[in-house]
């Protein structure tokens, strides 16, 4: 063998070794990762529907991969029996009363078996045990619900679209309000007027408040009027009487007018006594003469009466009267003391 041949053989040897090494590394990585060589505990689970689960799918417990599905086959009652290969080192954590259900490692991911629950006072599973199964989330049902949601959404968006179109075209109050500039100006003026009106109203209410406060003051007439019913009825009666009085007064003045008229006419005519007295000169002269005569006669009567007093027949009476007067005066002085 030449030296070149030797070198060639060595290089080739290394090349082949490394190539086969890659194959072996791949095999062992694959085997180790998928736990093909680890000891397995085989347990069973029966499902009505495995939703496309295949041999080799993963088994999860608390989110950790603990084995793979070893076989999928039908039973006599048309249910599907799965043989689950659980790693020997993990099987002690799975209790006889744990439950298995079919899940998925993502919305569109691979199907997996999810083992849950189990209480610590129950012994761990052994080879050949059958786990209770639960129905998992049904993607079909979920999708059909979602579809209903979608349809509703389409309806809603369609309505909104029509609405916004109408608004854009200026139809309806909101549309007009958004698009019409004249209306906007009117609205602005209106708002200004409204503001003014509101200010005025404010003032009015303030005044009213003031007024009502006064009205509410106890004892005032207005308050009495508003609150006391007796006063009101009295007032009514008074007003009624007042009316009667004014009517009477009116009649009276009429009478008075008539009377004064009659008086006037009778006073101015010499036909009656008063008229004669007031207006006739001849009568006045006569009356004056009579008065002079009357005065003279009175003076003479006085003389006569003096003479009568001194008459004996009447002297006694006058003396007696003087005495009684002095007596009354004395009694009065005593009482004063």
């Amino acid at each position, binding site marked *: 063998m030449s030296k070149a041949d030797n070198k060639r053989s060595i290089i080739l040897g290394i*090349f082949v070794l490394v190539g086969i090494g*890659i*194959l072996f590394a791949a095999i062992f990585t694959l085997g180790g990762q998928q736990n093909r060589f680890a000891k397995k505990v085989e347990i069973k689970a029966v499902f009505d529907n495995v939703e496309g689960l295949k041999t080799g799918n993963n088994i999860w417990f608390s989110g950790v991969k603990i084995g793979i599905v070893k076989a999928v086959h039908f039973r006599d009652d048309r249910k599907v029996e799965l043989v689950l290969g659980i790693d020997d080192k993990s099987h002690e954590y799975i209790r006889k009363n744990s439950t298995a259900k079919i899940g998925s490692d993502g919305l569109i991911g691979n199907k997996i078996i999810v083992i849950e629950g189990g209480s610590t006072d129950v012994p761990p599973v052994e080879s050949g045990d059958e786990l209770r199964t639960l129905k998992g989330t049904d993607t079909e049902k979920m999708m059909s619900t979602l579809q209903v949601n979608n349809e509703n959404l389409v309806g809603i968006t369609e309505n909104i679209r029509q609405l916004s179109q109408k608004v854009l075209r200026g139809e309806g109050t909101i549309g007009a309000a958004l698009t019409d500039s004249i209306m906007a100006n009117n609205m602005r003026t209106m708002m200004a007027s409204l503001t003014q009106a509101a200010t005025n109203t404010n003032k009015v209410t303030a005044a009213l408040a003031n007024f009502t406060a006064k009205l509410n003051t106890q004892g005032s007439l207005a308050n009495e009027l508003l609150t006391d019913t007796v006063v009101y009825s009295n007032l009514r009666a008074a007003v009624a009487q007042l009316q009667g009085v004014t009517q009477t007064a009116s009649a009276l003045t009429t009478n008075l007018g008539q009377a004064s008229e009659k008086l006037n006419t009778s006073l101015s005519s010499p036909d009656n006594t008063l008229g004669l007295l007031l207006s006739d000169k001849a009568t006045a002269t006569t009356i004056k003469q009579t008065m002079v005569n009357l005065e003279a006669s009175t003076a003479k009567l006085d003389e006569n009466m003096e003479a009568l007093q001194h008459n004996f027949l009447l002297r006694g009476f006058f003396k007696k009267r003087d005495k009684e007067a002095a007596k009354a005066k004395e009694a009065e002085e005593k009482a004063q003391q």
Partner: protein
Amino acid sequence: MALDKIKRMFIELANIARFVGRFFKELFNPPFEFKEIIRQCYEVGWKSLPLISLTGFVVGFVFTNQSRPSLQEFGATSWLPALISIAIIRALAPLVTALISAGKVGSNIGAELGSMNVTEQIDAMEVSGTNPFKFLVVSRVIATTFMIPILTFYSAFVGLLGGFLNINQNENTSFLSYFYEVFDAVDFLDLFAMGFRSIIFGFTIGIVGCYQGYHSSKGTEGVGRAANWSVVMSMFLIFVEELLIVQILQGLRV
């Protein structure tokens, strides 16, 4: 004329069948040309390694990059390693390696044997007492049959590294996590199928090249034709075989 063509085609087919039959007969009959086999393995395996490595790396890198947009559409770029793994191990590594080798090794074998045939070295070898079929054909076919699978493992590894480089650049996936994903997506059947089909491809490349060279027509033109046809024919057969193997694997997988 047409009848003549059909007749020639059947003669050709018979020749091929006889050639393959002779190969298996000579394969198990001593003496064995170990030194020549090692030399051919060295030529086929080691000398092709740089080309295969580069091609594998580029295929892994580019395929990863080109697959990203379609996965990105679903926001599923985290599935890229699994996709790359399945693509490279199930199809790309064996196919690319076989096609590149068909170009490099197949044409080499065809041209070498063709020129030996033209210069009557094969006849001279027979006169000198060496079995030319054993020395030339069996050693080369054995070399391609064993070296192509090993080259395929290399190119798969390098292709996955190329994919890793691209994914690491874009998604910052770590090396361990990448290879975990890669091996999560494939199983033993994929790995063995890769080895199996590359053995078939290697055998095809060797036997086609040797047949074309061994049965080349005389003259310089015959050498070119032998080299050319060995590449075209082996590539065509590789695709046909790939199609059949995929069908068989599909049946096995269920």
